[in-house]
């Protein structure tokens, strides 16, 4: 701390400390703690808040598991189903994303000339100047029953009747994968970039096949980048709202859509909070799991 102050001077150091503390305390810790507390309280009209009925309760978490008391089902199949579907789809999307981005990142970092790789980076970034909602609608146009892809396939005679990409959730998967591609590519790119090219040549010289070189040399070297990319993509995918709203099939629900409903349409903030906390918990567990699997420390992930 002393070192930090001496290095940056008192003015800048004070600014940093205040900015970081403000950001952490007011924008993250306090609202989250408030949400956590809210999730354990009954949903009361404003007048009754702080009154004798405002006690800590597990009712919202019970609701998530057992459903409403008036329903016949022993468990809340719908919400639990949506929850696990969201998580497993997010994992699936993360894996697809990794498989898709790894070759691109490797190509940019180690194969392409500096100019080509700059060009690639720019052409990856530019589409993201367009806002997420618009990008999702563009994909909808592409995948719709009367959409571009169907028209092309029908026109060339490859298929006889239109394929319902939306109902099959192909559009949703594509949209979610594409939405956070940069957050996968850049950590991977940074990690692979720092690998000494001689390592690749040495492996090749020793007789290693391309796949084995990746498996034994590149991937172990890039594991912090992989963990970092997977974590971010998973969290953002699981927490995405706009893309699922636009692209999911009518009978697919994303967990964030449920949260949104509780907060906004049903005006039940405490249940919304409980559902948010559930999602947050799973995300944190996922991060810890990634760190475990890739044997990396939190500092390496954030790098």
């Amino acid at each position: 701390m002393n070192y930090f102050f001496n290095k940056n001077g008192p003015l800048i150091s004070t600014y940093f400390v205040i900015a970081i503390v403000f950001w952490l305390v007011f924008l993250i810790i306090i609202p989250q703690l408030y949400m956590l507390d809210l999730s354990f309280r009954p949903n009361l009209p404003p007048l009754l808040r702080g009154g004798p009925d405002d006690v800590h309760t597990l009712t919202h978490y019970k609701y998530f598991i057992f459903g409403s008391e008036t329903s016949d089902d022993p468990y809340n199949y719908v919400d639990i189903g949506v929850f696990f579907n969201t998580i497993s789809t997010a994992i699936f999307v993360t894996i697809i994303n990794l498989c898709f981005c790894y070759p691109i990142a490797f190509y940019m970092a180690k194969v392409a000339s500096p100019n080509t790789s700059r060009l690639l980076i720019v052409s990856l970034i530019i589409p993201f100047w367009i806002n997420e909602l618009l990008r999702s609608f563009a994909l909808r146009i592409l995948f719709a029953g009367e959409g571009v892809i169907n028209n092309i396939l029908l026109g060339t005679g490859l298929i006889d009747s239109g394929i319902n990409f939306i109902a099959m959730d192909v559009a949703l998967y594509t949209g979610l994968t594409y939405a956070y591609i940069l957050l996968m590519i850049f950590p991977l790119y940074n990690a692979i970039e720092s690998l000494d090219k001689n390592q690749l040549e040495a492996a090749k010289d020793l007789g290693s096949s391309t796949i084995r070189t990746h498996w034994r040399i590149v991937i172990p070297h890039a594991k912090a980048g992989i963990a970092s990319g997977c974590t971010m993509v998973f969290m953002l995918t699981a927490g995405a709202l706009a893309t699922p709203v636009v692209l999911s099939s009518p009978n697919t629900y994303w967990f964030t859509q449920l949260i949104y409903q509780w907060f906004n349409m049903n005006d039940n903030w405490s249940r919304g909070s409980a559902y948010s906390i559930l999602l947050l918990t799973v995300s944190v567990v996922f991060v810890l799991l990634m760190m475990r699997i890739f044997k990396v420390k939190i500092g390496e992930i954030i790098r």
Partner: protein
Amino acid sequence: MSADVELQNVSVTFGSFYAAKNVSVKIKEGEFFSFLGPSGCGKTTLLRAISGFLDPSEGKVLIGGQDMAGIGPNKRPTSLIFQNLALFPLMSVADNIAFSLEVRGVGKAERRKRADELLELIALTGQGDKKVHELSGGQRQRVAIARALAIEPEVLLLDEPLSALDLKLRQKMRTELRAIQKRVGITFIYITHDQGEALTMSDRVAVMNEGELEQVGLCDDVYDFPHTPFVATFVGENNPFYGKVISVEGDMVKVESHGNIFSAKAGKIEDKHIHKFSNGDDVIMFIRPESIFIKNENNKLDNNFIAKVNTIEFEGNLKNIYLSINSNMNVRFSVPNAVDTSELSNGKDVELTFSSQKAIVLPRGSLAVD
């Protein structure tokens, strides 16, 4: 097993730039062969052409008599040691050494056995479980050698592997490398910009300049009979005397330079032929610092000249004495440290002497250092 390597008119171009130009050389099997040249002269480029990381733009690379065109680095009987070693930092020392066996599907126990054998060869017995970063510079060096030897290559290629080490370690590693080469008996192709390294370790050297081979030969031949002014000045130290031929008698040439007349041997053009000079030719006569002596009763040789002492430099075992004949001709010679130089005060004229047998005349050409 060991193989010979032949380069036939090999050229490598980057755009219109020739990094290697028409290089032809035959490296014998089991030989310790060095390419020696200043940095940027194309040594690494040649080595990459031999190992298969780049294809020559023209010419052929033959290993064991077989044309290597279209054969990748992982399929050639060569093994390359990189300038920065390129050890795998996330693997243990034993895994590094046995990597080439792992990729060939050799079982774990067998790999470990082979790694242990190689660790013994490089005098690192029992250190297989360490991580690379736990080793010292010299130990890493040896691990890189062991890793390259594990595939039992027929030719080992070494790209300035000692350049990162400090002087003492470098000298120790020279001896060690030479000993390892003798033990395994395979062809070593070594590249370096350090002439001391090349001369102490190699059977033969090839001196390179700007992508071309200037001279190939035994170390002492290259040192004693340089074929070009570049070789004369790049390999070891030399005093270039610019001058004109005034007479030729057999292989002895009389040269007039800076008001002195010297007699010297005509330099060689190839191993068997010497340069033919005629009167009036512009030439350079070379005489090495260790072949010049202060003239006295015991030391009277057939060439003599007078020069003024500028500085005396102490270099441990030697003393270097810098003198000038006139304002644009400087000379340097060296004497063992034990020799008394108290009479050589700065600014004093001294008479020096050298043998015509030690002086070599070559046509004018570019020098390594000006």
